[in-house]
């Protein structure tokens, strides 16, 4: 684990960090220590997965990075892009649920971040159309969320996260509730988007297969309080596609990650 950290530290000197967490802990009001101490360095443009058992604090880590809550100790650094046209946010967040506003159309849902930032309507319209097109939902702009399937709702959620053109995309088990075929398709679409847009992605999941398939680095976390159990780099021929999913290299990585994850599950009879 430690040598991995050093190597990523060396590389960090060359490429700037998008996110860095140092000695971060999070203890909730009820005394439960959810996280830490936790160190994480994510380079710009990197796709990493946080993998761990339920309740290991991976979502907590993501919320801390998003600024939805403050760490109990330690520092969270997120690089914000400089001279950006739109105010504020270098971060897009995709929740486990689609988290759409049911009372309004797909277009208005995606426009929300721009509306809150008071982006002029005409400009917002163009960007909303672009974001919806990038997730393949151009024809559904006027539909209401409940008229869409689960996978489509998730795409709307993704379009909303992309509409501000954030540098960092945080995803909290976004595809966990979807069926396998839909999930595979969204995995591929997400990879294509990531390659095209060059964003930093931090992806929380409890699926070994998903994490290996998607990410350049899989950070395996321990059971609560979450710490880093292993940091495994996934190296393969890019761009990845369905052939990677069936390759022996993929199976090897899955085995390796599963082995790293196994101690986190020991003694957790509830799961």
């Amino acid at each position, binding site marked *: 684990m430690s040598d991995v950290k050093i190597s990523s530290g060396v590389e960090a000197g060359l490429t700037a960090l998008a996110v860095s967490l140092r000695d971060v802990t999070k203890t909730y009001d009820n005394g439960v220590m959810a996280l830490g101490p936790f160190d994480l360095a994510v380079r710009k443009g990197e796709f990493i997965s946080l993998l761990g058992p339920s309740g290991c604090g991976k979502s907590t880590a993501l919320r801390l990075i998003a600024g939805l809550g403050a760490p109990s100790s330690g520092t969270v650094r997120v690089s914000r892009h400089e001279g950006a046209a739109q105010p504020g946010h270098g971060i897009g967040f995709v929740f486990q649920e689609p988290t759409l506003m049911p*009372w309004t159309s797909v277009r208005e849902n995606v426009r929300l*971040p721009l509306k809150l930032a008071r982006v002029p309507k005409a400009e917002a319209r163009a960007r909303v159309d672009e974001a919806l097109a990038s997730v393949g939902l151009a024809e559904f702009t006027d539909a209401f969320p409940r008229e869409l399937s689960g996978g489509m709702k998730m795409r709307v959620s993704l379009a909303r996260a992309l509409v*501000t053109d954030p540098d960092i995309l945080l995803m909290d088990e976004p595809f966990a509730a979807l069926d396998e075929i839909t999930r595979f398709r969204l995995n591929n679409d997400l990879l294509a988007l990531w390659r095209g847009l060059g964003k930093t992605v931090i992806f929380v999941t409890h699926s070994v297969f998903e994490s290996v398939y998607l990410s350049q680095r899989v950070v395996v976390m321990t059971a609560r309080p979450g710490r880093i159990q292993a940091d495994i780099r996934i190296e393969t021929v890019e761009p990845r596609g369905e052939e990677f999913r069936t390759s022996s290299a993929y199976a090897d990585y899955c085995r390796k990650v599963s082995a790293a994850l196994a101690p986190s599950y020991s003694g957790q009879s509830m799961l």
Partner: protein
Amino acid sequence: MSAQSSAPAKPSAAQRAVRFVLPIIVFAAGLAAWELVVRVKEVPPYVLPAPSAIFLTLINDWAVLSQSLATTLLTTLEGFVAASIGGIALALLFNQSKWVEYSLFPYAVVLQVTPVIAIAPLLLIYLEQQTAVVVCAFIVAFFPVLSNTTLGLNSVDRNLAGLFQLYEASGPQTLRFLKLPSALPYILGGLRIAGGLSLIGAVVAEIAAGTAGAGSGLAYRIAESGYRLNIPRMFAALLLLSLAGIVIYGLLALISHLVLRRWHESALGKES
């Protein structure tokens, strides 16, 4: 006007027609029996007037009754509007500040649980009659609006709230784009209750006000006709009150349906 969909199977057109026609048949049969009993037994109209007599009174006394109806409806409307604005505004205030909520909520409850019929005479001492009547309608109707709106404002999706926080939404933005739309179904539910209640409040206050001259409401007509043993007119006024209540409820239900039909579970058809 299907209230509930009890069966999972789609009701056919015939079934729906039956649901609509049956109550009408019952109504007609009831009226016919009533008319028959009154005629056969020759019951005097000051004991029980026949439906036909009530209907005739409604036509003959329309000048007086329609004016009273207008008065009562105006009172109801004023009370309803005051209750809606007051209830929603107070709920928004509670939502902004816990301190205000803790300080004032018990009094809202006290106002709600004290029977309005007991408050009305006091109000009539301190306020002008018309004002007192409107205040009564307001007191009865405002609590459901307040409590429903409060419930709605507190039912905002946690993740959506997080999203607004992430995008650094201002307080007014969060209120306008998140809290109020989230609370809308609850608010509309509250208004639907408040509509009927403000009519009840207006009637109670009119009866408590008792003696009054021209421009008195339907409830006053009922009381007055009672003193004069003009029973057919009592029934006619009562009928108008019931109809007014039904129309108010129907209107508010319709508005609620139109506003929510695209997205809220309560207003969606059974097919989706």
